[in-house]
């Protein structure tokens, strides 16, 4: 009976795992010819998993009923909301990928399968209630991601990205594992609930070291400064649909995981991790903003932009309150939409022969040659910069509201002042598109699915998005509340 209850809680993961395995067999025997069918099947599997998760999010599932396998796994509303975002981002990657790879003549049947496995890994990550579950999910995701980065085998940049990602990712995993073993050694348990009890009357040195290493390892995964160095190279080298996937889904997963580790396992030792989080947040904001200024490649620029955004999300975490966790989830939801939109816009940048172009200077005068793309990209840039009335502002707003309510006014003031530096390069893109004379590079036609996805993202981040604030805020509040009901 216990087992059956546990299995029903991990139904979305079972759907993903089984469909991933079946599709892997299909891919092995069917070859690359069936890539398109496998993509569609994988998207259906994601849709099924999404449908299975949605009820628990809407109902705000929390408490002991959500704990599976004796405290290893939690399918609460917080995990559910993160899963919704992850599945949606993975679905978007599946939608855009076939067209991109077919143009390059390199559509491989493994791609959708790997996306499914990566998604499964992230799904396990966000539901982890135990360090071991955490590590299994993280590694499942990472191993699939390394291959994804290098999936364009003939492309040197892609291979380089895969290798870099693997080496640095393995290092991060090592650091994380070291931190976990220290934590286990000094807390006597790998269970988050158990750790929370063990550290409730103060951290000893070993536990503190464990916490620090765990945070450092996770900071790698969310590409927060000072562990951000791999991000621009990997984002630039990986094929654009893969980059889009990297920039959206794993961020959600790792940040949700980070929130769970800090707020659940080390929730009573706020002061110990808060300074680390604040440091990483401010450094990410500043480095993300300054690093982007000199970039010539749109994908590198978006990589720095993602570092910058992670900084703002961490400000919500630094608040260390339920409102902060809720604000983080709202920010993540908006961030996923903005990221997917930006990378789809990059996918739509093609020269007359249909080859992808990625240089910022190629965007010159885009507003006269391809006005729809230019206006959408402008909305995305202003939204990423957090200028109202675009919806990106709301993410920053709730995060800073949480920080102010937690009496971190100075942090909020410094963070928001640093966001002005970031605004510089976002408006630079707008300047290139709108003020400069046409370069005439981006003239090729885009694909319909890409346009459709861009239209959806643009609509969501337009001022109409504010109509969603009540609904989104409600879901995020319930998700954060479920986080508080620890064991």
């Amino acid at each position, binding site marked *: 009976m216990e087992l059956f209850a546990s299995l029903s809680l991990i139904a979305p993961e079972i759907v993903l795992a089984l469909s991933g395995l079946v599709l892997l067999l299909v891919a092995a025997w069917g070859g690359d010819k069936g890539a398109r069918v496998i993509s569609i099947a994988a998207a259906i599997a994601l849709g099924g998993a999404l449908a299975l998760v949605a009820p628990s999010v809407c109902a705000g599932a929390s408490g002991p009923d959500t704990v599976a396998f004796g405290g290893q796994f939690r399918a609460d509303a917080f995990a559910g909301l993160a899963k919704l975002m992850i599945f949606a981002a993975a679905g978007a990657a599946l939608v855009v990928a076939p067209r991109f790879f077919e143009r390059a003549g390199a559509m491989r049947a493994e791609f959708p399968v790997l996306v499914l496995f990566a998604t499964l890994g992230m799904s396990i990550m966000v539901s982890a209630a135990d360090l071991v579950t955490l590590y299994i999910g993280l590694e499942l995701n990472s191993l699939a991601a390394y291959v994804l980065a290098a999936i364009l085998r003939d492309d040197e940049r892609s291979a380089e990205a895969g290798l870099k990602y693997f080496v640095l990712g393995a290092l991060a995993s090592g650091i994380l594992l070291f931190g976990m073993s220290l934590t286990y050694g000094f807390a006597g348990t790998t269970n988050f609930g158990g750790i929370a009890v063990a550290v409730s009357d103060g951290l000893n040195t070993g536990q503190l070291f464990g916490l620090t290493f765990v945070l450092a390892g996770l900071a790698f995964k969310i590409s927060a400064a000072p562990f951000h160095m791999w991000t621009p190279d990997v984002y630039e080298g990986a094929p654009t649909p893969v980059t889009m996937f990297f920039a959206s889904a794993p961020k959600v997963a790792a940040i949700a995981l980070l929130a769970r580790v800090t707020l659940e396992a080390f929730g009573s030792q706020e002061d110990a991790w808060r300074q680390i989080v604040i440091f990483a947040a401010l450094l990410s904001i500043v480095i993300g903003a300054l690093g982007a200024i000199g970039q010539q490649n749109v994908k590198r620029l978006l990589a720095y932009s993602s570092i910058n955004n992670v900084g703002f999300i961490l400000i919500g975490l630094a608040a260390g309150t339920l409102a902060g966790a809720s604000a983080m989830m709202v920010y993540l939801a908006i961030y996923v939409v903005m990221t997917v939109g930006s990378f789809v816009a990059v996918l739509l940048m093609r020269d007359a022969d249909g080859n992808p172009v990625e240089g910022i200077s190629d965007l010159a005068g885009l*507003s*006269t040659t391809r006005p729809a793309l230019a206006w959408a990209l402008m909305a995305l840039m*202003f939204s990423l910069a957090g*200028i*109202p*009335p675009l919806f990106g*502002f709301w993410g920053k*707003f*709730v995060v*800073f*509201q949480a920080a*102010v*309510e937690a009496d971190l*006014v100075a942090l*909020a*003031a410094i963070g*928001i*002042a640093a*966001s*002005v530096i970031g*605004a*510089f390069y976002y*408006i630079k893109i*707008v*300047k290139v598109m*709108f*003020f400069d004379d046409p370069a005439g590079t981006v003239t090729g036609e885009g694909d319909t699915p890409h346009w459709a996805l861009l239209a959806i993202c643009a609509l969501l981040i337009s001022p109409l998005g*504010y*109509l969603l*604030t*009540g609904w*989104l*805020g*409600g879901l995020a509040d319930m998700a954060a509340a479920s986080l508080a009901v620890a064991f």
Partner: protein
Amino acid sequence: MGGFPILSVMLAVPLVGAILCLFLEARQARMVALLATLIDLALGVVLWANYDIGGAQWQFTERADLFAGFEYALGIDGIALMLIMLSVFLMPICIGASWEAITKRVGEYMAAFLLMEVLMIGVFAAQDLFLFYIFFEAGLIPMYLIIGIWGGQNRIYAAYKFFLYTLLGSVLMLIAMLWMVNQAGTTSIPVLMEYNFAPEAQTWLWLAFFASFAVKMPMWPVHTWLPDAHVQAPTAGSVILAGVLLKLGGYGFIRFSLPMFPDASAEFGWLVWGLSMIAVVLTSLIALVQADMKKLIAYSSVAHMGIVTLGLFAFNVQGLEGAMMVMLGHGLVSGALFLCVGVIYDRLHTREISRYGGLAINMPAYAVLFMLFTMAAVGLPGTSNFVGEFLSLAGIYQANSWVAFVATTGIILGAAYMLYLYRRICFGEQKNADAAAMPDLSLREYLLLGPIAAAVLWMGVYPESFLAPMRADIELLDTRLAAAAPEGDAHLALGEGPPAEAEQHEGEAH
């Protein structure tokens, strides 16, 4: 007006127009934009006609529960009414001024202007703190595009400077707003205007708001974005920038800084006085040596805004009324002056003062109107600026006579640079053959300048029309400030000596 949501309609009309313009050809876009702004002007007249002077403080209120965390709440008092009137009055003129001057990407241009109108009305009508902030900040986007796409040679630098300067000013205000809402537990501006924050907190909040409004105003030394933005913006952009956008800072002071933080306002009065005195004198001197007409007028705007801030921080009714009147008058006059520059710029494509001369000979009608606006800028009695400047100076004189003394020299310098400008352009020899061959005003230009000239004279001769709707609100603000107001050094005794002049004037004004 019953339940008719007139403010929402005033926001919706230009918004729909803006979206339409994006998809239209040049000719149709111009017509749509003109139509939308004229409808808004008509609605504005209806608004003013139905505004109940002496009635409720907040009228035409609307409320809708659309968002989480803040409310869609609109409503106006007399101060907001007057500034909305200024906006809707200037907008059709801006569209008219761009009728022939803008030939590339007309649809996008008109859309950006209509969007500006939406946001400006929104700023003045918002009754929710965060709704205000969204409207306030959103104005950056269309203005960035207007300067950057349709500006002059150095437009990109100017656009960057405008954007980043004003953004940096505003984000700190956002943090202050978040803190206030957290403290007071409401986002409603009318409630917050009566909420008493602790004096220590007021200091920080005041500084954060000051960072934003001082940049928007602009006050010396953070005014440097203004000349760049003005010079590079197209004529209509300058008109809207000088006419309405600069008023956002003053509106911010009168709506937020003064009523919400009266103690801190009094505490920092010296700072505002000092910066304003420097602004008035220094920027007037800078204006005197400009070779570029638009730059000259831009610097004169900074000087006039110095008078506004002095009036606001005089902590008495005259000062506040004067500040409001200077804002309205300056909105009209500087807008008109930029239009006058635009008229000859369209003909000769240069803003160099020395390229013109003796225009009174070949453009007599232009010279007459330009003369009127020059005199209004100087503050000649009978024109709009006289009323405002006089009241402001009378107000600040009660607070501190030395400040009033320094500020008055600014008025004298103002006369110097404006008359010097006028002499070099309209009088003297006709040195340049091309300038001498320029035709006089066209019908379109008459239609642009005529209404402003009428409004300038109306405001100068019978300012009561404009002061009446604001009086109750300004008195309310004065009572709110009374407890904190610093004691003046003038110790005026009514009815004796020099103040008699002020008395006499007040009789005229009220």
